[in-house]
């Protein structure tokens, strides 16, 4: 098996350049799950999906576009020359698409989602707890695999920009629809109100 080359220079964001597309940064982590995690994690995932309040903090962090956790119980088999392999352990695939810096991302995860981190990674071999953050960063670094290619459809946009743009659109739609039917004075009032309402997102 070949040895992976270094994942490109570490950038100011704290991660390899191949994990970056504009403002968007990728992180991909595999961890090996203890036997009890095979039972616990599916329950945790199901409960988290059905109780949006549990992801409230994730939403409030406001720098994660998309994230996912998957359990890899077997590597799909495609016939020879791929050997049939029955995995002894289940492995967890974690990916995140975020903006900001790698260090800040891990810091925020550790300090704000401390209990959530314990729930999601507590069954992973070697997980050192979210705090203190030093050992946790070391753990993530050890288990992270750099992307060979990473893509964002809107690389220059942070999640704050995306959310603001979608909020502006909500404010703008009624005025776009009604603009032609208003008197100039009524339009001006509606326009001023729209700008006032949308000001936080501009």
């Amino acid at each position, binding site marked *: 098996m070949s040895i992976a080359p270094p994942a490109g220079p570490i950038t100011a964001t704290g991660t390899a350049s191949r994990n970056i597309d504009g403002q968007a940064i990728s992180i991909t982590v595999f961890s090996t799950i203890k036997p009890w995690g095979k039972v616990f994690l599916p329950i945790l995932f199901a409960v988290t999906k059905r109780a949006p309040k549990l992801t409230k903090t994730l939403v409030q962090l406001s720098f994660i576009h998309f994230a996912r956790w998957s359990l890899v119980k077997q590597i799909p088999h495609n016939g020879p020359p791929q050997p049939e392999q029955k995995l002894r352990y289940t492995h*967890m695939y974690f990916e995140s698409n975020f903006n900001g810096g790698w260090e800040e991302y891990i810091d925020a995860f550790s300090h704000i989602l401390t209990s959530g981190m314990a729930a999601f990674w507590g069954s992973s071999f070697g997980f050192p707890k979210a705090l203190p953050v030093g050992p946790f960063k070391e753990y993530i670094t050890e288990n992270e695999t750099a992307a060979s290619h990473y893509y964002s459809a809107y690389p220059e946009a942070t999640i704050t920009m*995306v959310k603001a743009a979608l909020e502006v659109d909500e404010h703008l739609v009624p005025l776009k629809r009604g603009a032609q039917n208003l008197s100039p004075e009524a339009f001006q009032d509606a326009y001023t109100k729209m700008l006032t309402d949308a000001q936080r997102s501009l």
Partner: protein
Amino acid sequence: MRTRSKKHSRSINESGQSSGFLAMTAIKPGEIDALRAYLEGFRDRGERPLDKVSGTHMARFVIVEKFNCKPVYKQRRAENIACASLAFSSNLDGSIDRYLDVLCEQLQPEAQEIWGRCVGSPATCEGKALKDYLKHNQIDCGFFYAAYGEATVPKVKAALDQRERLMAFATEHQGVPAAELQQAFIEEFA
């Protein structure tokens, strides 16, 4: 090739209108370095092939060669991956089925260069044969989070552009008489 049945739950891979897709395909022996060089070369060549696959918000190709294990982890036995694998993950609009239809049609000639280096891939990596292959190698989400899962890629791009235009418009039209303001707004946005 066995493909996934419809009873296979869709919802675990969804958040709002968005879906998460992950496939792990074993790489043919001797092809790892070539595949890595090809994927890394996109950036060097200034190519963005996934621009062709509409509905892709964010995606990645990752070559997985090992599961990490250290003595300090107290894992009884280390586990090696028997065959290095290519993980392709995408955060996408709508259903995975429709997305794969687009990907398998539009990601040409790149799909052949990518999955053609993987074990068991169809001789011609396109269309239904490639779609079946990717679905066979799909790994479900356990938990999928999308911060703006109701917004499609076109919607996000249009909203970003519109916000920029509105900020410029508001700056340029300060103190403009009502009728002129209205006409300019209609021309710009309505």
